[in-house]
């Protein structure tokens, strides 16, 4: 999952990106509204963490501009907790609203929920055949037995599971799993897929040659 954080306070930006990377997200950062808007409209993000008070282009303007072209889930971060501010935030297209100061755990949970809802699933538990994925605990079990996956492997499984029954292209995988700083070698995805097949069974991921991958094709 790839998220963009737009925050002008450098210390906060750093801690947010670090913690979300530890959660397994690919994280891009922007320090002002203009940069944030450019990145948000240029790439496919699974979610946006957006501060309201930003130099150059403020959070509201960024959101309004973004909504013209994209429906990326947006979590607004703000120090303003008046009801009118929250109402304004939600009304202008934000999907969720978090008031500073916040707990990182809550931010992560809300972000997961946002991404899940955007993918059309409302529970934290995804089950595909004998495989079940707990997106909250970030664990995968096969027939009740826990399977040990690396963060990147887990992210790929989650991405495929969230798009179950639908084709996930290699481009999508690159866009959602790797941030702007990652060195995206072309065979990296194949390596991950082959490792996942070893751990979860060969049939879990179906390859559409030349197009991409798909899971849960047969329900």
């Amino acid at each position, binding site marked *: 999952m790839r998220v963009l954080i737009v925050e002008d306070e450098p210390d906060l930006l750093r*801690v947010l990106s670090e*913690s979300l990377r530890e959660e397994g997200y690919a994280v891009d950062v922007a320090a002002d509204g203009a940069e944030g808007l450019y990145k948000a409209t240029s790439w496919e993000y699974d979610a946006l963490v957006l501060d309201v008070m930003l*130099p150059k282009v403020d959070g509201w303007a960024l959101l309004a501009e973004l909504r013209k072209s994209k429906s990326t889930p947006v979590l607004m971060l*703000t*120090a*303003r907790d008046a009801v009118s*501010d929250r109402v304004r935030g939600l009304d202008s297209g934000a999907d969720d609203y978090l008031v*500073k*100061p*916040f707990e990182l755990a809550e931010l992560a949970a809300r972000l997961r929920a946002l991404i899940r809802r955007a993918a059309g699933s409302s529970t934290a538990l995804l089950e595909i055949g004998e495989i079940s994925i707990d997106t909250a605990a970030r664990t995968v079990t096969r027939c009740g037995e826990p399977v040990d996956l690396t963060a990147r492997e887990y992210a790929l499984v989650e991405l495929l599971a969230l798009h179950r029954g639908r084709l996930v292209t290699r481009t999508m995988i690159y866009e959602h799993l790797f941030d702007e700083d990652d060195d995206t070698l072309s065979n990296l995805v194949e390596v991950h897929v082959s490792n996942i097949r070893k751990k979860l069974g060969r049939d879990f991921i179906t390859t559409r040659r030349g197009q991409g991958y798909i899971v849960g094709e047969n329900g």
Partner: protein
Amino acid sequence: MFFRSIRWRLQIWHATILVVVLTIFGGTVYYLQMQMRMQQIDAELHRTAEMVGTGVRRAFRPPPWMRFSGGGPRPQGAERRGRDRRERDEASLPRESSADDEAPATPPSAPEVEPQETADTSPRNAPRTPRERRSTELRLPEEIAHLFEGEEGETPRYYFIVWRDNGEILHKSPSAPDLELPTFDSEDSSSLVRIERQRGEFREVIHDSRFAPNILVGRSIRPDLLAQYRFGWLIVGLGLTVLSAGLLGGMLLSRRMIAPIAEISSTAAEISVSNLSRRLNVDEADSELGSLASTLNEMFDRLEQAFEQQVRFTADASHELRTPLAVILSHTELALARERSAADYRKTIETCRRAALRVKSLVEQLLTLARLDTKELSLEYREFDVAACLYECVELVRPLAEQRGIRIECELPSLLLTGDSVRLGQVFTNLLTNAIAYNRDRGRIEVSLAGVESEAIITVADTGIGIPPEHLPHVFERFYRGDASRSEGGSGLGLAICKSIVEAHCGTITAMSDHRGSSFQIRLPREGVGRGEDETSSP
């Protein structure tokens, strides 16, 4: 409480004035009517007395046989009275004044009356006969004789008494009461003295003549008094009607006049924090109430503005405080999530310290502002050299400037000023720090000082990026930051504090800017006017 309302006070005043006016008016009318009635009665009595006097003079014979016998032949009395009354009614009005005025002055006028009367009554010879016979005693003119006779079984309303000055009663009508007759000392007056007097329910006139017997004619004025009382009650009734109509009208009027006030007050009562943007209706813009409403509206405008400013300030302040708090919270949370390296912990602690320092400076700045606002911050006024103070500040920030190769130019003349040197030093330092922060590398800062009349003018100019014109009017607003990123530091309170401090010294601070740089100018009165003097003058 209820009766203290303007409406009720108006009503009570109105009622009082109405009652007073009506009482005066009614009383006057009643009194005038009474006077008129009495004058009429007196005139009538005088006339009667004159006629009696004529009769007396005509029948004047030595006493004692000269006595009036009032009891005429009864059978004919009623018929004659009716006729007489009619005659009197016809005759009295036109003749009233002439009889009144001429009779006493010119006694010969009596015969004049006589023939007329006899001519009048001549067609009725038969009833005359007994009277003709009696006239040798005291023959009263027909038109008044009946007055003293009265209805059957009733006492006549009129009575008369004729007496001499020595008290000897010459004549007396049957119904005449026993009075203590007044004796008059009329030696000095040769003419007739006419006296009117009231005796209970009786009105009497007395003709006191020196050479003839005195005559008293009286009558009961009971019916007249009753009529007068009726008239009085009529006035009271009318007065009450007018009063109630006036009160009712006044009540309606006052309600109409008060209604807009009540509306204003109820609307004003409804205006609260949640709907400060509501305004009073100013339809009656021309009236006094309209101007009251618009005055109130202007007050609400100012209140709303102040309130919005306050809300914005609070929101900004909380925002500025929450951001470093969020940094501390999230960094510690991340660090504690799992085992970290010593370097990571160190980094986290450094970040937290930075954030905590920012909270501290922000709280201090907010406190300073709050104290300046509430005038709690006491400025320590003393005379100091502005140039020396500026040099100190420049030395303070010089290392910062040298990092970016910025040159600070200041050649300052010595100038004494009375003020709080510490606070003003803060202002200068703040302006210099800004001039460095928003300057270009290897730029230049120009500090100048001039004394113009009673003012000291301090200017700090930089060669930086300048302030966009749309931001220039707002730079002194609290938490106004323009496009400056938070990463560039500063809370957005610095210039606001500068402005408050300068204004506490009764000075002004202005900003000018173009693409070549910005310059801030402070004008301070040199004779520390302002709060310092307030303090010395206050007890």
